[in-house]
């Protein structure tokens, strides 16, 4: 869901590339583009020098109460200022609501390497049915022999699992 619009300008594509350097403060291996929370990048007045170009970035929160959103907005602003953009506006948008399906494949492999099980595709499992456990492979030993400890973990976007083979507990970035 993050593919750069083929009609976007070179300046916009440059900003998409810069945003890859802005990390999620809660899961620092992921960039904001890996997460899929950047919904749009627009640059107006291309003929003027960089510092006067109007940059409009639209972001969407992962969860309503995500405390990282303010930090992320600030980090994006700082990154762009560092690269010479002075006129930056960041807008939050709630609809369409963020889904883990917007996370990039690269983001998912980075998560796994970091020890967090990446989200399963939404169509596979996203239900309010009770006492149903999702088959989540252990990010360390790849075993599917795992069990849910809690649907909520260190942050709102993760659940806590335990591997019954290597006995390690791990975070699962839950499907949303």
């Amino acid at each position, binding site marked *: 869901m993050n593919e750069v619009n083929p009609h976007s300008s070179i300046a916009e594509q440059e900003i998409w590339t810069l945003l890859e350097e802005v990390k999620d403060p809660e899961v620092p291996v992921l960039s904001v583009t890996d997460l899929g929370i950047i919904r749009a990048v627009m640059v107006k007045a291309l003929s003027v020098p960089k510092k006067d170009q109007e940059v409009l970035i639209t972001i969407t929160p992962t969860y*309503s109460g995500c405390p990282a959103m303010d930090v992320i907005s600030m980090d994006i602003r700082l990154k762009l200022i560092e690269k010479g953009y002075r006129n930056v506006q960041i807008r939050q948008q709630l609809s369409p609501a963020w889904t883990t399906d917007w996370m990039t494949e690269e983001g998912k492999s980075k998560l796994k390497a970091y020890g967090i099980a990446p989200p399963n595709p939404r169509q596979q499992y996203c239900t309010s049915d009770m006492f149903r456990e999702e088959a989540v492979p252990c990010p360390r030993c790849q075993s599917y022999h795992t069990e849910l400890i809690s649907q909520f*973990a260190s942050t709102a976007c993760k659940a806590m699992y335990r591997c019954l083979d290597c006995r390690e507990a791990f975070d699962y970035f839950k499907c*949303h």
Partner: protein
Amino acid sequence: MNANTFRYCLHLADNALVLGQRNAEWTGHGPVLEQDIALTNISLDLLGQARNLYQYAASLYNGFNKAEQQELADLIPRPWKSYNRELQEDDLAYLRDERQFLNVLITELPIGDWAFSTLRQFFFSAFQQLQYQQLEKAADPHLAAIAEKSLKEVTYHLRWSGEWVIRLGDGTEESYSRISKALKALWPYTGELFSRAAYEPSTDRMPTLEAAWMEKIAHVFAEARLEVPAGDWHQTGGKEGRHTEHLGYLLAEMQYLQRTYPNATW
């Protein structure tokens, strides 16, 4: 019409904020660490929903003309009037008095024991899911977006709290007696969810909502070996700002800092 949207927004936000604040009292006191974290994560979600709603309410108010603002004078926090700036989300959360809060009474009741808190969350989440499903189709695009976003979170809350109701109801003698006691205490507060306040959109179909809610409750209760209580007498008043004695204490704690040090930030 505009004034009603503002009131309705505050009502939805107050529900989320007050229950979020209540649940947060479990921080460090849950029966096991993972469940402590689960309930306080639900708090965080509710707080986020409340923020989105207060932000929208504040932007509505700031866009109103004098006459519309006048119509809402009863809900606007007094200390803010001396600030000489636009209304903000924090003013609405931290500076309104008890009678200006429009949350349903069930959200403000003290946390009780684990059975009481999880059963309350289950009743509320089952209702919130249905309410937001209607709101998602609302004509107001801002409210529809907030509902769409919140619904995904509510789905988790409902699942988690429903599992606890079953676990406790169909558990040991002790857990069954605890949740039965909680049910008796909470039931008279459930009817208010379906009594329409004057500011609530008339497109919300309360009887349909109530029937769907009852169905959900009955389904989980059947597994939990609990019976839906018979009595249909219900407490009301919260939606109009008439609260139990418990809300004042909650607000005193939550609002202390902003009232003592106006506009403090860190």
